[in-house]
């Protein structure tokens, strides 16, 4: 039995189920689907976790698995490949403190949903703060430079979305 198999399943659930659920909810914007994705992630871990030999990589593995499950379900639902749109505006608009201070979780997820799909996952993982940008790159299987540019561009879109939501 590998070292990893000896890790406490309950401890893993305790430590990661909330950030995983939040990641799933931000992707799916649906409580039911987010719960399913989180359960599916731990189901796969229960089946395949024994093959993981580096305990330090479990966190990234869990986020990767959840993201792959999300993409798999999306592909099944609609045969659409996410496209990364070109953004001409690079400078992020200023978001007034009043706008930001009225943010709650659901408003944040609503805003993330308006961001291009290619930016949504890296942005969400960034704001959940569980993974460094290098770990985000590994989780999403994209180069580090791509993560940085997607975060930069994604933040521009996110701030624009929040400004558009602002009544003023």
């Amino acid at each position, binding site marked *: 039995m*590998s070292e990893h198999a000896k890790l406490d*399943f*309950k401890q893993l*659930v*305790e430590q990661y*189920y*909330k950030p995983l*659920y*939040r990641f799933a*909810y*931000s992707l799916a914007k649906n*409580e039911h689907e*987010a*719960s399913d994705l*989180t*359960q599916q992630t*731990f*189901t796969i871990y*229960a*089946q*395949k976790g*024994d*093959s*993981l*030999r*580096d305990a330090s*990589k479990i966190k990234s*593995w869990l986020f990767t*698995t959840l993201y*792959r499950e999300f993409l*798999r379900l999306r592909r099944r639902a609609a045969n659409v490949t996410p496209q990364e749109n070109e953004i001409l505006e690079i400078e992020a608009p*200023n*978001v007034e*403190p009043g706008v*930001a*201070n009225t*943010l*709650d*979780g*659901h*408003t*944040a*997820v609503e805003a993330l949903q308006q961001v291009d799909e290619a930016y949504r996952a890296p942005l*969400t993982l*960034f*704001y*959940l*703060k569980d993974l*460094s*940008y*290098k770990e985000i790159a590994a989780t999403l299987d994209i180069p580090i430079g791509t*993560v*940085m*540019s997607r*975060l*930069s561009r994604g*933040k521009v879109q*996110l*701030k624009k979305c929040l400004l558009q939501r602002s009544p003023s």
Partner: protein
Amino acid sequence: MTIEEAKSILAAAHPDGSHPDDAEVAQALKLAETEPELAAWLAEESAFDSTFSKALESIEPPTDLKDKLLALEPASHEPAQEDKVIPMPTPWWKSKGLLSAAATVAILFGFAAILLKPTQVQAEANLTHFHDSVANHFRSNPKLHVTSDDLDKIRSQLGEQGQPVPGELPPKVDALLELGYGTFDYQGHPVAYISMHDDDAYHLYVVSQATFDQAPSIEQPQVVADSDLALMTWTDQGNLYVLILRGNVEELKQLL
């Protein structure tokens, strides 16, 4: 480092100290100490990031989710004492003494050319040539023709294309996550390769044993090193499998 480069790095980092070991982040933060424009940008960015993070962290899962997850904990599968055991032919990954057998095979391999019959010598030569081919293929970082994380779908598509189809795999190999597959020709015969990973990257090569005029038959796996690669080879149900990892043989043996 320019101000724009520093912005790009800090926009992707957590300047609150969540990842203090990153040298580039440290360098960008140091620049912010001497560049007022960058410092002002960073203050605004950090305030927004912090607010947005708190908003996301306020999302709470359904109250029953944790219990549902805990119920997924794998149960122990120790066989009950009263269970009857029916003797059946077992593939190598279900047999006892596997590691010692694999080691023995590796040692005996060196004596094979002297001790084996001519057909067996030819079979070993065929295997060595195939090993060299797939090792070179693996080192070339080949692109996948199709990306898929569904092994059954990969099997189905390979079958439709008349390519070698992997059968039942050893449990720990089956447990690896698939990324996709590709195919190529080896001496006019099709070879399929499936990219897999856990925290390492693997390629599983599958070829029909009928490809070889003297087919290697390896019921117990051979684990051998080839420079920076480790290769595990076995045959089952008419296929020859080679699993390759960039690493040492001990890492591969953990999949036995």
